[in-house]
C-alpha cells in the first residue's frame, strides 16, 4: 500500500501547530522549521501565544499556536492561512480553524475531544466537525493513547508521557512532508544531552508518529515534498528577531572593542533579549535586571558615561518611562541604544501581540527639541544588521538611537546565513585625541558635529555633563538665549547630517502605478503583496523604510516619482503623518490596520488592487 501514496511537489506550504499552552506546540513548530531549513528550504515562523502563563487547561484562552511557512524559494511571511492545521485539543480546533485554507488538512488528537474537552471548548454538540462546518480532510487519530502505548515500558510517569504528544504530531507532519526525521533525532539528543532517557523517549514518539502516517496513510491521498531552490550557499541557523537583535549588540560591542551593558526590566515581548544577553557572560556581557524601566534607561546612560556600549531594551510602555533618561542622553550627547519591541497598546494593551503604534512616540515623545535617530528592523534576521547599525550610529555620532522591532519579527524566526564579521564596517567612536588636552571642552565638536567622548580615567579631561543646557564653547551651565538657540540647532543638525542608505525601490521601479510604502516588520507582507500584484500584471513597486530619522536623502524624490503612493502600516497613519510633515505637498493613500496580528497578504492585495484600478 505504501507506494500507492503519491508524492506531490509543492512550492511552499504553511503549517500551524496548535494546542494547549502546555502542549509544547512552540517546540514542535520550531523543530519542524529547523528540520525544513536544514534541508535548504526557506522558513518564516510566527509563534502566536496567549498572554496567560497557564490558562485553565483545555480552555479557549489557553490555546497556543505556532505557524511556519516553508518554501522552496524565498518566503517573506509566515503565510496568511495554513495548509495543515494540527489541533491537539478541542479548544485549539475551535479557535484555530479560522486560520485554515478551505483546502487545509486538519490533524486532531481524538483523545482530546471527549465530552469534557468539548464542553470546555464551548461546543454545543459532540459532532464538532459538523458544528463548525468543517468539510476538510481530517486526520483523526488517537494521539494520546498511541503515545501512552508507545511509552508504556519507558518507566515514565503519566505526566511525563503526555508531554511527548507534541512529538507524535511532529512525526506525523514530518511523514506528510517527507522530512528526514533523523535531523529531529539529532536535535533532541543535543537538547537533552544530559537527560538521554528523555531524548530517547521523544525520539521513539516521533518515530511512532511517522510510522503511523506511513502505515495507515493517515487517510490522505498524497504526501508532499518541498524542494530546495535556495541559491546562496553558506552556513545557516534558525534565529528569532529577539535573538538576532541580541547578537547584533554583542557583535557591535566586539567590533568597537567595548564592554556591552544592558540595563533592562522584564517586559513582553522584549524580555528574550535580556534572557539571551544574560547567558553570554563568557563574552563579558553585563546585564542588570533593574528595579524599573526608568532605571534600565538611566543605568544605561551611566554605563555610557563610563565608556561602555550601553543598551536598554523594552516595549512601548517602557519607552513611556524611559523617555526622560533618553532625553538626558540627547542633551548629554552620550551613545545609548534603546530597543523598542513594539506590542499592542495603548497602556498595557495587547502584550503578546504586534503593532507599529510607537513610531511617533519614539520620534517625538520627549520634552523640548529632542532629535533622536530612529531605525526599524524589517525581519527576524534583519534585526541583527539593524542592531549593529544602531550601535554603530550611536557610538560614532554620540547620540541615543532607537531601534524599533515588533512582537511579530521579534518572536518570529527565519533561516539566517551566519555573518562574516570581517564584512561588517568598523565602529570608531570619536574619542577625544590626547593632543586636544588643554583646548578641549565637553562640547567641542568633530567635523561632522559630534561631541568627543572623554571617558573617565583620562587625566586632564575631567568634565561635568548634565541635563541643563550648556555653553557651546565652555561646557558650563548657560541660560543665554543665543547659546540655547545655537545648541538646539547643533543637536538637530548633528542628527540630520548622519548618512543613511538611500531608499531602494523594488518591483516596477520605473513605471509603477502604485508605490507601496511601509516601515519595519511589515516588509515581508508588503513584499509578498507586491509580488502577487506584479504576477497579476499590475505595475506596483515597493519602498520600505529602515531608517526613519534621519530619512534617506532620496525620500522626497522617491515619494514624488509615482502618481499613487500608499503608506501601509499597523497603526492609524503615523508614518504617513511623519512623511507629510517632512515632504511638502505629499498626500499618500493609506492602509491602516491595528488588529495586533500581522497583515494578511490577500487583504493587502485586494486593497492595493482597488487603489491601482481606481
Amino acid at each position: 500500500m505504501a507506494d500507492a501514496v503519491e508524492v506531490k511537489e509543492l512550492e511552499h506550504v504553511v503549517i500551524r501547530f496548535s494546542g494547549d499552552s502546555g502542549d509544547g506546540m512552540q517546540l514542535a513548530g520550531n523543530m519542524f522549521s529547523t528540520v525544513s531549513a536544514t534541508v535548504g528550504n526557506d522558513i518564516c515562523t510566527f509563534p502566536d501565544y496567549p498572554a496567560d502563563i497557564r490558562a485553565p487547561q483545555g480552555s479557549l484562552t489557553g490555546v497556543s499556536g505556532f505557524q511556519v511557512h516553508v518554501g522552496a524559494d524565498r518566503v517573506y511571511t509566515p503565510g496568511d492561512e495554513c495548509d495543515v492545521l494540527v489541533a491537539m485539543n478541542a479548544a485549539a480546533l475551535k479557535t484555530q480553524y479560522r486560520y485554515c485554507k478551505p483546502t487545509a488538512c486538519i490533524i486532531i488528537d481524538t483523545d482530546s475531544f471527549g465530552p469534557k474537552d468539548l464542553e470546555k471548548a464551548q461546543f454545543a454538540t459532540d459532532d464538532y466537525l459538523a458544528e463548525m462546518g468543517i468539510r476538510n480532510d481530517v486526520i483523526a487519530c488517537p494521539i494520546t493513547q498511541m503515545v501512552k502505548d508507545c511509552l508504556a515500558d519507558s518507566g515514565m510517569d503519566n505526566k511525563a508521557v503526555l508531554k511527548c504528544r507534541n512529538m507524535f504530531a511532529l512525526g506525523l507532519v514530518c511523514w506528510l512532508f517527507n522530512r528526514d526525521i533523523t535531523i529531529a533525532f539529532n536535535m533532541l539528543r543535543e537538547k537533552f544531552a544530559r537527560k538521554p532517557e528523555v531524548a530517547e523517549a521523544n525520539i521513539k514518539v516521533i518515530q511512532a508518529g511517522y510510522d503511523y502516517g506511513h502505515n495507515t496513510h493517515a487517510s490522505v491521498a498524497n504526501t508532499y515534498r518541498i524542494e530546495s531552490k535556495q541559491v546562496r550557499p553558506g552556513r545557516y541557523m534558525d534565529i528569532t528577531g529577539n535573538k538576532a537583535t541580541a547578537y547584533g549588540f554583542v557583535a557591535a560591542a566586539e567590533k568597537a572593542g567595548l564592554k556591552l551593558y544592558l540595563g533592562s526590566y522584564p517586559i513582553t515581548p522584549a524580555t528574550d533579549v535580556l534572557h539571551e544577553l544574560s547567558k553570554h557572560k563568557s563574552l563579558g556581557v553585563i546585564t542588570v535586571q533593574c528595579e524599573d524601566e526608568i532605571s534600565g534607561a538611566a543605568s544605561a546612560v551611566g554605563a555610557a558615561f563610563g565608556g561602555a556600549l550601553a543598551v536598554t531594551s523594552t516595549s512601548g510602555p517602557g519607552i513611556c518611562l524611559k523617555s526622560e533618561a533618553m532625553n538626558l542622553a540627547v542633551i548629554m550627547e552620550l551613545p545609548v541604544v534603546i530597543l523598542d519591541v513594539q506590542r499592542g497598546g495603548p497602556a498595557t494593551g495587547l502584550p503578546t501581540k504586534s503593532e507599529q503604534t510607537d513610531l511617533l512616540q519614539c520620534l517625538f515623545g520627549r520634552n523640548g527639541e529632542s532629535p533622536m535617530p530612529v531605525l526599524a528592523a524589517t525581519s527576524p534576521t534583519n534585526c541583527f544588521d539593524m542592531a549593529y547599525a544602531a550601535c554603530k550610529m550611536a557610538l560614532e555620532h554620540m547620540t541615543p538611537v532607537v531601534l524599533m522591532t515588533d512582537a511579530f519579527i521579534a518572536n518570529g524566526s527565519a533561516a539566517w546565513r551566519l555573518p562574516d564579521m570581517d564584512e561588517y564596517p568598523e565602529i570608531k567612536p570619536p574619542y577625544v585625541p590626547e593632543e586636544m588636552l588643554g583646548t578641549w571642552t565637553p562640547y567641542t565638536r568633530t567635523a561632522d558635529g559630534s561631541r568627543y567622548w572623554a571617558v573617565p580615567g583620562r587625566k586632564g579631561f575631567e568634565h561635568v555633563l548634565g541635563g541643563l543646557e550648556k555653553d557651546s564653547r565652555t561646557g558650563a551651565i548657560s541660560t543665554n538665549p543665543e547659546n540655547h538657540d545655537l545648541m538646539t540647532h547643533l543637536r538637530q543638525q548633528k542628527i540630520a547630517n548622519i548618512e543613511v542608505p538611500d531608499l531602494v525601490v523594488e518591483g516596477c521601479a520605473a513605471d509603477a502605478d502604485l508605490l507601496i510604502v511601509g516601515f519595519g516588520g511589515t516588509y515581508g507582507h508588503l513584499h509578498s503583496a507586491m509580488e502577487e500584484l506584479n504576477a497579476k500584471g499590475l505595475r506596483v513597486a515597493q519602498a520600505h523604510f529602515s531608517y526613519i530619522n534621519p530619512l534617506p536623502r532620496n525620500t522626497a524624490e522617491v515619494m514624488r516619482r509615482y502618481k499613487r503612493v500608499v503608506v501601509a502600516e499597523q497603526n492609524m497613519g503615523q508614518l504617513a503623518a511623519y512623511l507629510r510633515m517632512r515632504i511638502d505637498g505629499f498626500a499618500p493613500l493609506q492602509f491602516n490596520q491595528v488588529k495586533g496580528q500581522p497583515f494578511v497578504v490577500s487583504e493587502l492585495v485586494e486593497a492595493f488592487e482597488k487603489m491601482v484600478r481606481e
Partner: protein
Amino acid sequence: MTANDYKKGQPRWCPGCGDHFFLGALHKALAEIGVEPQNIAVISGIGCSSRLPHYMATYGMNTIHGRAAAIATGCKVVRPDLDVWQVSGDGDGLAIGGNHFIHANRRNIDLNMILLNNHIYGLTKGQYSPTSPRGFVSKSSPYGTVEDPFRPAELCFGARGRFFARCVATDAPGTIEVLKAAQAHKGASVTEVLQNCVIFNNGCWDAVYTPQGRKANAIYLRHGEKMLFGENNEYGIVQSGFNVRVAKIGEDCTMDDVLVHDAHCEDNTLQLKLAEMEWPIALGVIRDVEAPTYDASVAAQIEEVKAKKPYHTFAQLLETNDIWEVKG
C-alpha cells in the same frame, strides 16, 4: 593631593547654605583619601545640592530628578575601578528617587551615596519634602502636612543597607571622618548630612549646627567606644528593655552600664535605635557591615563563566547554535 585639586568653579548656592560647608569638607576628605580626580565620578540628580558636581574637578554628571542612584549604578557596574559618589537631596533621593535609593542599598553596589537632608524642597522654592515632620508648614502645606516623614536610616536599614553614617554640614572634622569611612566601605554607603536651608527652612538643625549645640545635643558614635556625650561626657547611652535611653553617669547608671558602639554588628536592631534617637542626635558611623558588593559579584561571575564556557568571541558564540550548511 590637596583640597584644591578637587575644587572647581564658584558655587552658586545661597550665602550661608549648608551645601557650601559640605562641599568644603568633601574636597578635604577627597584630598585625604587621595584617589586622583580622573578616577572619580560624582553623579547627582536635580535640586540645590545636586549642583555639587559642577564644583568638582572630577568627572561628573548633574542628571535628572531622582535618577542619580540608577545612573551611578550603570557607571559603577561597567567601571568598578572608578570611585563613584552619588549626591542627592531629601527630595531627589527619597521622594522621586526613593525606588532607586532602596534598590541601590539592597543590591549593595559600591556607591558613596550622600543624602543632604534639610527637610525642604529649596530649588522649587519651599515645599515640604518626604523628610519634613508631620504638621510641617510650607508653601504646599499652609495648614501643616498630614503625613509622616521617612527616617532615612530606617529606610536604609529596611532596604538592607550595610552602611549608614550621619554628620552635620558645618562640622568639618565630623563630616570628613564619616566621608572617609563611607569611601573605605565596600558596598553601598549612605551618609546623611544634616544641612540647613537658610531661605526656606532656616534653623532646621539648630540643635546641632554649632559646636556648643553638638556638645549638648549630639553624640559621636565610634565603633568600639563607649557611647558618651555632654559638656564633660557626663551622659551615656544605656540599654532599657528593648530600647536605649540616656542616663547620667553616677546618678542613673554606672560607667559599666554604658553601651559600647558596635557598628559592625550584622543585626541592625540596636543601630536603628541609635539612629532614631531624638536626643541626643547620633552622629558618626552608625552601621558599617561588610557584605559581597554587586559590582564585584558581577565581575566575579563573568570571570567564573569565562573559565567554564568555551566560547569567548562572537564567532565562537555563533558555533554554539544548530547550524546547517547549504552547498553551492
